[in-house]
């Protein structure tokens, strides 16, 4: 019998809002003629998973288990790179490693910074 994770499978409003935008890499890349199959943040995401594991905040197998569950349920219709990112954030919110309101306000700040150039 497989071990279940402790992740909360409930949908998260902030992440659902992202999905409604529909701007996943498989949609955006062809629109701009970009042939790289992975978005530019993919390597950074992998490194972040590594960092969380090595510093003990989120062990790899815990993350994988929760990621698998979320991939089969909440994010089953989402393409792979975005699904991995959403699952990681979902798990971090579920474990209170970050707070949803903090994340929402930081996203606004990050977007503002990136669009300032």
């Amino acid at each position: 019998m497989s071990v279940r994770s402790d992740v909360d499978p409930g949908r998260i409003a902030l992440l659902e809002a992202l999905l409604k935008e529909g701007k996943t890499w498989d949609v955006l890349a062809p629109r701009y003629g970009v042939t790289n199959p992975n978005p530019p943040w993919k390597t950074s995401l992998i490194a972040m998973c590594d960092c969380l594991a090595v510093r003990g905040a989120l062990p790899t197998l815990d993350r994988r288990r929760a990621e698998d569950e979320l991939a089969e349920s909440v994010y089953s219709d989402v393409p792979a790179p975005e699904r991995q990112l959403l699952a990681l954030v979902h798990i971090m919110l579920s474990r209170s490693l970050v707070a949803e309101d903090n994340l929402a306000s930081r996203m606004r700040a990050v977007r503002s910074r990136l669009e300032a150039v």
Partner: protein
Amino acid sequence: MSHTHKPGDSGGERHAAPMVEEVTDFEVLEIAVRELAIERGLFTAEDHRRFTEWTESVGPAAGSRLVAKAWTDPAFKARVMEDAVKACKEIGIDWAEPTGFGTPSDYMNLRVLEDTPTLHHVIVCTLCSCYPRPLLGMSPEWYRTTNYRRRLVRWPRQVLAEFGLVVPPEVEVRVEDSNQKCRFMVLPVRPEGTENWTEEQLAEIVTRDCMIGVALPRPGRTADVHPVQKASRPVQGAAHSGEATHEREE
């Protein structure tokens, strides 16, 4: 000279743009959550830089060593086939900590696929780009293209032929689809002409592509050797301009 590309351009030659020209919510999300994690002390920006550097720089040398050792040590090969992750420790790769400074995100389940004279394996990840990073490093660009991922499972012999690997009809081709649960790599057949070679010599001819399964190891061919040879039937004029590009696997 600058080059511009507008989305929706339909006329003239098509060029791949380096990146999409808008800030996406997913890009913003990744940065935002990373910044909050760093501020909370879950890891440092330096940690993240080191792991990113490792992710983008690790190569296939460990995989080459594994194959060379399996060729020369039957007991080791048996252990590889029995429990590849455990056997990897004998060549200095701990899947729980391959960087030497931390735990990677790869799922720790590796299966080594042994080729025989009548069976050839090739690996793919049809969903995304799952790959045995601790042994082979980052996957090549073409491995992640939809061209390779979609076509290999349908027409493996055709795709392999495009790599210059023509598999005889009497040899079965088996495609293994990597996923989040399991990683694969190919243990090719040791080529003739390598008798009495040392492990180091053997490892030199076991290139990344041999362990993916789109090439075969051959004496004299290493990753450091420029692979392009003069075409046996060059296109008229191309031989003179240095444009001969295709070689055939014998």
